[in-house]
């Protein structure tokens, strides 16, 4: 028995334990994917494997394309507005010492301390008053607010990590503050922008509570609420197959984005640790 084989024997419990955990974490996702194409009585797919459940899903209610469009639009708006607001805000917090800076920054972070429901009930009333009820734009603005604490914090520390000499020398050369931001700083904070976009996308794409409260028209819904509604609306029997197909449609973009941008996802948590 050499040293290596003893080492392998010593490591066996570790591999059994971690392997078992890996199976438990992967199993539900794999099951949903398989169940969505498997035959099942009272679903769109009764015999053999196939995409019957996806056909049911496609034609349900206002149609999958409609819900998909709503979700994509909301996600796009939230990412875009979050980038603009936190990009400009992060630049201001990092580079300018204006009056009220610290109060405003703390106030932005304080959004995290307030329960979702506490703000959404009055927002429901407010959006009604200005005619933004059932509006995907109204929903996007509300979802953006809840992205601002993390996004502003992330962009502030991203700008602070860029050496000041870079923009100071450009300012000396007569560059305006906006062109310093646009041409010199933005390329340096790209990783921060990607992290902010990733978190904003995942939050907007997956949010359930805000659209449930703010959108009353079932045809204007985003995917999560639409698919939750799908369960009740099919006649008589509950269509589990189409629901799992819906889960796959919702989860797939998130999983793919995560696999490609895992580095940026992890950085979102590293940043908190660095600054305490």
């Amino acid at each position, binding site marked *: 028995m050499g040293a290596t084989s003893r080492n392998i024997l010593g490591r066996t419990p570790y591999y059994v334990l971690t392997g078992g955990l890996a199976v438990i974490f992967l199993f539900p996702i794999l099951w949903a994917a398989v169940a969505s194409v498997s035959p099942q009585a009272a679903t769109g797919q009764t015999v053999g494997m196939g995409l019957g459940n996806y056909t049911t899903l496609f034609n349900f209610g206002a149609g999958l394309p409609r819900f998909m469009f709503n979700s994509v639009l909301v996600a796009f708006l939230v990412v875009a507005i979050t980038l603009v607001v936190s990009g*400009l805000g992060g630049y201001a917090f990092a580079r300018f010492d204006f009056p009220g800076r610290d109060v405003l920054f703390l106030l932005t972070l304080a959004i995290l301390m307030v*329960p979702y429901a506490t703000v959404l009930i009055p927002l429901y009333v407010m959006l009604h008053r200005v005619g933004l009820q059932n509006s995907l734009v109204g929903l996007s603005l509300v979802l953006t607010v809840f992205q601002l604490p993390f996004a502003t914090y992330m962009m502030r520390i991203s700008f602070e990590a860029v050496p000041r000499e870079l923009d100071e020398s450009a300012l000396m050369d007569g560059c305006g503050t906006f062109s310093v931001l646009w041409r010199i700083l933005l390329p340096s904070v790209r990783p921060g922008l990607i992290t902010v976009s990733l978190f904003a996308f995942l939050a907007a794409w997956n949010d359930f509570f805000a659209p449930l409260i703010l959108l009353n028209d079932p045809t204007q819904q985003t995917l999560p609420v639409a698919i939750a509604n799908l369960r009740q609306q099919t006649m008589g029997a509950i269509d589990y197959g189409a629901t*799992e197909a819906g889960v796959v449609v919702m989860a797939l973009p998130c999983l793919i984005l995560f696999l490609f941008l895992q580095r940026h996802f992890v950085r979102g948590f590293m940043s908190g640790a660095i600054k305490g």
Partner: protein
Amino acid sequence: MTPATRATPRGAGWRRRHQLVGLVYVIPTVAFVAVFFLTPLVLVARMSLSSWPLLSGDRGLNFPKNFVAIWNNQLFWPAVVFTIEYTVLVTILLIGLGLGTALLVQEVGRWVGALRTIFLLPVAVGLASASLLFWGFYSPSIGPISPILEAVGVIHQPISFLETSTSALLSTTFLIVWKFAGLYMLILLVGLQGIPDDVYEASALDGASRGQMFRYITLPLLRPSLAMALILCVTGSLLAFDQFYILTKGGPDNATVTVVQLIYREAFQRQNLGSAAAISVIVLLALLVLNAIQFRLLRDPERS
């Protein structure tokens, strides 16, 4: 260029005015915070003091009626008790499993890298998607658990996952632990990696055992990360909604109604925005007090 020569072409007056330019760049932030955060907070306070039906709107002040009504609401205290039970259960499991998995994936390597990714995959899936996934997963008609156990011969009848209050709580807890364990692993892993190696090496030279190292080095130095994980987990669990709304619908017999679900029911089923606002205000105050206590307890004793 020295700072002195740099300041010459543009004087102190320019410097002061230059700092004010920052105000222009925070206009969007100010607008969002004022319109979508501060205004709703003022309005929710106002609503909690008013008779405010969902459809007809503000009917004038009625303080303290909404708050008295909470006291008499038969669902309120059961919802508070259930939410706290759920929070304690989920927090213990998530922090424990998060720390356990973080310790398992500390080293560098292919298998460890793959493991981290696997544990993090459910974090990327949305909570509503995960709840819908498990709604099918637990169902007697397509759920895979009962058939597997029946095939092995462990059970002879399908297990019911959501039919009793205990099984509904445990099934929802499993879903949440599955969905969020990776998140807490990541937070604690960042903390673990911030502990310098030479602290362990020095204690190893002094003959410390692995258990002693964990107890006297890892846990104390992990305190800031543990504090952040704890506050995040307690806050998130106290505000639980999606998972119960989708998976149990508060059932069986309202046994799994959480506080936020109660707010939703008051507002949109009983159509009473005033009393929904009153519960929201109480939840906000309770959360602020709780987080202040947690911050105080978990603050580094040496720094305070």
